[in-house]
């Protein structure tokens, strides 16, 4: 990691609308709320992060923690479909290479989408159109952004399919999605997202639907392609193994907020939030002999309509009573920098957390 990356991040939690982002992608205080009959669903509630080119950010969290909503927000896909009267309420700032996306003209964002930023979805069967061949879909994606004839575009499609490791690309380019296996579909989708050499690639659970052997192939592919194209990559997943493979930086989400963020090594080896401890403790591991039992997080994830007051994690936190005066249940902890480029949102003092981690949690993992 160079000094340049994240140098802008050192300010902590930037608020207000002062521009001058130094990072390639900078998200500031992003909020995505959905009005529903039952109340306002605060899917993402104040998220800030930066990402440099050539770096990979991993976003982890359980289902309903706001990971996917964040990625759709960056792509500007919440406003794209305007069904009914109820639209998502989005606020904050998203700076991509000097352009603020949320206030930009939707037509401008549309031109960026696909070309400068692209996305790999979780389920390739529902993300690919069953009626068109793989080739037609890649050619369409290419020709929207490049004024070339169909032949050239087709050549480009074959080249991309070859690049992602589809055998006999010149033949398979005319196949339909249903003729591909799950792994090949995911490869085809990666080919489609990369056909315009995007500078930002968002992979939303790119391997969740795949078998481990195919997952390993896809993770390798994403890593190689990133090296080759130098793109910035956001990997969204619930699998800590996948992020450990790919990510330089890690962002742990809980209840629509970031509760810990930092370099992957820091978050894995010196986590400073009880929820991160919980995630690490719940995970059965292949690489080491464990004690008999896993250490699960008790309870279930919070409802995003009634996020618990104070720290959102307090009903499930075994250490909720460590800080004095019931502060965990009344005051929401802010992200504070606890080490170089390492932030966590917890009321416990740093000494308390360090002691609990080294004495109580780490030995059991």
């Amino acid at each position, binding site marked *: 990691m160079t000094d340049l990356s994240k140098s802008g991040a050192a300010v902590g939690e930037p608020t207000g609308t002062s521009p001058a982002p130094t990072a390639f992608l900078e998200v500031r205080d992003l909020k995505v709320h959905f009005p529903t009959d039952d109340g306002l669903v605060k899917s993402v509630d104040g998220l800030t992060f930066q990402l440099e080119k050539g770096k990979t950010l991993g976003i982890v969290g359980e289902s309903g923690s706001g990971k996917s909503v964040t990625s759709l927000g960056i792509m500007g896909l919440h406003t794209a479909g305007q069904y009914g009267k109820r639209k998502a309420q989005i606020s904050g700032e998203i700076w991509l290479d000097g352009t603020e996306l949320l206030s930009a003209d939707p037509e401008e964002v549309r031109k960026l989408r696909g070309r400068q930023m692209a996305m790999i979805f979780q389920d390739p069967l529902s993300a690919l159109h069953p009626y068109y061949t793989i080739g037609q879909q890649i050619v369409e994606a290419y020709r929207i952004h490049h004024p070339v004839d169909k032949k050239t575009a087709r050549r480009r499609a074959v080249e991309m399919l070859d690049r992602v490791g589809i055998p006999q690309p010149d033949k398979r380019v005319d196949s339909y999605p249903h003729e591909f296996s799950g792994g090949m579909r995911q490869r085809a989708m990666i080919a489609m997202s990369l056909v315009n050499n995007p500078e930002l690639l968002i992979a939303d659970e790119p391997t969740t639907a795949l078998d481990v052997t195919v997952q*390993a192939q896809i993770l390798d592919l994403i890593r190689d392609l990133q090296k080759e194209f130098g793109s910035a990559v956001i990997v969204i997943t619930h699998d800590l193994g996948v992020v*450990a493979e790919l990510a330089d930086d890690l962002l742990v989400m809980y209840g629509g907020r970031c509760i810990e963020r930092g370099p992957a090594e820091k978050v894995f080896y010196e986590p400073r939030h009880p929820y991160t401890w919980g995630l690490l403790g719940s995970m059965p591991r292949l690489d080491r002999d464990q004690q008999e039992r*896993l250490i699960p997080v008790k309870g279930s994830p919070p409802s995003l309509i009634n996020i618990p007051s104070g720290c959102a994690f307090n009903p499930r936190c075994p250490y909720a009573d460590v800080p004095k005066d019931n502060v965990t249940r009344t005051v929401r902890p802010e992200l504070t920098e606890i080490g170089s480029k390492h932030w966590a949102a917890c009321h416990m003092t740093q000494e308390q957390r360090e002691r609990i981690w080294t004495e109580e949690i780490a030995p059991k993992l």
Partner: protein
Amino acid sequence: MSDKADDKAVNIPAQSEGTVITKGDAAPGETLLKVTGLQKHFPIKKGLLQRQVGAVRAVDGLDFEVKSGETLGVVGESGCGKSTMGRLITRLLEPTAGTVEFEGTDITHLGVGGMRPLRRDMQMIFQDPYSSLNPRHTIGTIVSAPFRLQGVEPEGGVKKEVQRLLSVVGLSPEHYNRYPHEFSGGQRQRIGIARALALSPKLVVADEPVSALDVSIQAQVVNLLDDLQRELGLTYVIIAHDLSVVRHVSDRIAVMYLGKIVELADREQLYKSPMHPYTKALLSAVPIPDPARRGAKSERILLKGDVPSPISPPAGCRFHTRCWKATEICRTTEPPLAELRPGQQVACHHPENFADQAPQDVVLLSDAKEAAELVSEEALAASAETSAAVAAEVESGGPDTEASKDGAAKTAPGAAEDGAAKTAPEAAEGTAEEK
């Protein structure tokens, strides 16, 4: 583990009454479930006359035993037949061939009525906690259904028993009158577990019990299954694709590939020194949650392509099209599932971490050469090294050095000029004796 013949001998007299099932007669360590040559082929029909044109060989010859009180984990990629296997042993599907014996009774072709008394002893936990609970029934109705169907009146009444079960699985007895939609995924899975436990079964087959759950919830359910086994002496067959989960819960693990078991071993042995190349590749593909090992490509074995179609599986060893060690014999002869080490059965001509079973065959197939390109030099070297080391250990450990020396000499590829007469079964016998 060592004396399978004894197990059978002990078990069968205990069940001399045939279909009469008595509770608690299988002591820990006795064979509860025995599967022999189990097959399930789903016919493919085509045309006006619906003539059968082929078959999906989902399960194609399985042999294994499950002992009372143990947990057998079954892993494999999607489409390897592991779920079909689960449905066959609980007789939710009719096997095409082979036999399933439960407590010594042949249940392979029992009808619905014939199976009913056995359903008390054999229950299933399903993968999807959303589709396996009837949305129009209350939790009370769902969990009490087994009592109703079996005509069992538990002590203290059905309601009291259901409430007890709910508290056993970590739910509140007040949930009795609620509906499934009021519960989260993890809670629903607990309801499914409570239903499976209602009649205090002996065998519980769990098909992907935690794969639909979040990590933190997954750990809760895994711990619950653990506790229940300890308290109630349950026997589990746990089917899962997640190798870390399987490692955590199982005593023995069966690895399936295209409808066959390629390796069946004790947990420790399987994870420490896998012998089938497929097991090795599968284990190496699991992403390790440790950033320090990022990009450690040298340790990873990438398999090329996808699993072949179970409609026309490859001849010989089914894994030979993706294996980096495949030779001519792999294409022609199917390796038998043989116990090469005590407690470790493997179906491979060229096992890892062990003396080669077909040392006369050293010429790689073109498939294998292609596959070997995906396997890093380090991984290959390491595997050759461990194979040699293990073989040497076997050699020095036993008195019967003559037999194993031949095997040891041939672990390094290319060094296998002599002693070509040695065949696989012989080698297996030799090493088994030594241990």
